[in-house]
């Protein structure tokens, strides 16, 4: 029997991840996602709307949908380990609020995370500033989450003490 958690091959993992990153970057650039003015043109539905970027999703989603169907019959990834896919199905308010906040930033500068990082490869100053600020935003969220978790741990500990 094949174990569902195959022996990890870290070298192969690195090579495949690096290749995936290159293909992703080429795809983003060819698609037009690394041109913030084009992204804003796509989002500008009441202005001179350029629907091109809808075709990015039309190209990407069927390919990935096919891949997930095929992957579901495999027991483990090529480079070993196990499949680690999202399991959450609930649509909690923070998902919608977070996505809404992300959209404001995307609309303001025309960069989402992938194109921002990819544009570092051409030493773009706006992309560099965007990526540094994005990393700070992520760290800020993590810090706030940790603080909230600590506060709720303390308050539940206090509630236990009161009961005792």
């Amino acid at each position, binding site marked *: 029997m094949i174990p569902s958690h195959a022996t990890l091959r870290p070298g192969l993992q690195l090579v495949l991840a690096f290749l995936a990153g290159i293909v992703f970057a080429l795809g983003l*650039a060819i698609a037009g996602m690394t041109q913030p003015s084009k992204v804003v043109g796509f989002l500008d539905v009441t202005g001179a709307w350029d629907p091109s970027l809808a075709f990015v999703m039309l190209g*990407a989603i069927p390919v990935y949908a096919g891949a997930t169907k095929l992957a579901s019959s495999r027991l483990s990834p090529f480079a070993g380990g196990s499949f680690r896919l999202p399991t959450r199905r609930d649509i909690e308010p923070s998902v919608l609020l977070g996505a809404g906040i992300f959209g404001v930033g995307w609309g303001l500068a025309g960069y989402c*995370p992938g194109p921002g990082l990819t544009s570092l490869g051409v030493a773009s100053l706006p992309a560099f500033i965007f990526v540094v600020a994005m990393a700070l935003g992520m760290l800020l969220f993590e810090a706030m989450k940790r603080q909230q978790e600590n506060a709720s741990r303390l308050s539940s500990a206090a509630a236990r003490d009161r009961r005792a």
Partner: protein
Amino acid sequence: MEHFTPLASTLGGIMIGASAALLLFGLGRIAGISGILGGVLVPRAGDKAWRFAFLAGLVVGGAIMGKLRPELFAFGLDRRLLTVAIAGLLVGFGTRMGNGCTSGHGVCGLGRGSLRSFAATLAFMASAALTVFLSQHVFGGAS
């Protein structure tokens, strides 16, 4: 509509889908860029190497493409760098709070048929379109 590019955008999309499929088959992981970057920023140990390799691939891919077709990286917007920095902060904070961005929710999530990702994609598309409407048509272009 100045530069309508349905073929190039579809081809680019297919490549993005293929890259995400490679990460799924090869490593069993989701090609969510904000999640991959978020994972290298937190102090938690373990599984960071593949994340760095993927991010390095992104930058190298950008450099290769920039040599071949530099015009594909034109910023093209009239924005102050402060605005770009605020945008970056919002994108970083929002994608971690919402557990994903255009790639994780918009491609991988929708490709898996996740209702949660569908809701998130609607939310960021709507708020981005509203932001563009306000900045381009209400507050007049430059910001």
